[in-house]
């Protein structure tokens, strides 16, 4: 093998490259997981609403529902909120005198249990069955992995074996 004289250096470079890729893969895995969660949560929500509407034989009154997408801002009732709004309602400015939280709709869906507990890796056998049925085959390994608990290490699902 024609190993270059600076092969020690090259090993080091590869080591750095390896670390960098591992980091990126980790990030992309959580990105993919989030997308899967969103897909499952949304499908569950739609299914639930469809069933409820069928049972009730009519859609719920429009003033009792909030369509996605939305954002939630919650704070203590004691918080004083100062709000200015432009006339056309294109611009808002809120001043809170205390802490607040911002959540997206997906967070609400998760709290409603629409993600089958996958978001925290707490998934009953039944939950997992439902979750698996809501994603395409290619994503099932990821769902199974998520059901086992929060992911800390990089894992590689089938198909990418050595050489």
């Amino acid at each position, binding site marked *: 093998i024609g*190993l270059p004289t600076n*092969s*020690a250096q*090259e*090993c080091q470079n*590869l*080591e750095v490259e*390896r670390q960098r*890729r*591992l980091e*990126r893969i980790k990030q*992309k895995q959580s990105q*993919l997981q989030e*997308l899967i969660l969103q*897909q499952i949560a*949304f499908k569950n*929500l*739609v299914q639930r*609403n*469809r069933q409820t*509407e069928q049972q009730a034989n009519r859609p719920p009154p429009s003033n*009792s*529902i*909030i*369509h*996605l*997408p*939305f*954002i*939630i*801002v*919650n*704070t*203590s*009732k*004691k918080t004083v909120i100062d*709000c200015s709004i432009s006339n*056309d*309602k*294109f*611009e*808002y*400015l*809120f*001043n*809170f*005198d*205390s*802490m607040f939280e*911002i959540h997206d709709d997906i967070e*609400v869906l998760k709290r*409603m249990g629409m993600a089958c507990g996958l978001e925290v890796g707490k998934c009953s056998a039944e939950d997992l069955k439902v979750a698996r049925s809501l994603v*395409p085959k*290619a994503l099932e390994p*990821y769902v199974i992995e998520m059901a086992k608990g929060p992911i800390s290490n990089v894992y*590689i699902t089938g*198909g*990418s074996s*050595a*050489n």
Partner: protein
Amino acid sequence: NRIDANLVSRHKDLQREVCDLTEAEEQLDELISKCTLQLRLLTEDPQNKKLGYVRCQDLRKSFDSPDQLVMVIRAPPETQMQVTEPSEGYQVSLKSTQGPIDVFLCPEDSSGVC
């Protein structure tokens, strides 16, 4: 000699690993873009759009603290939201370019009406 042999095998191992990781990353990229597309199609489907809602009582239950005020913001796409550093006070600004923004409070009573 031995050191060289070690180095050679380490070099080889690393090369293979990086190669595997490259492949794994490409697979992930592909899945991510497929998944993004699926999600978009799913949420843009008119039938799903109609059924993609939460009830006010869902919201109340999700932020189930009696002392919490829950504000709902519905804004057109590409609306910008800016939040100040906590050290500079608690301020949120919203700026839309494509239409008015809707803000309302989630009711506390059991009427279920927003």
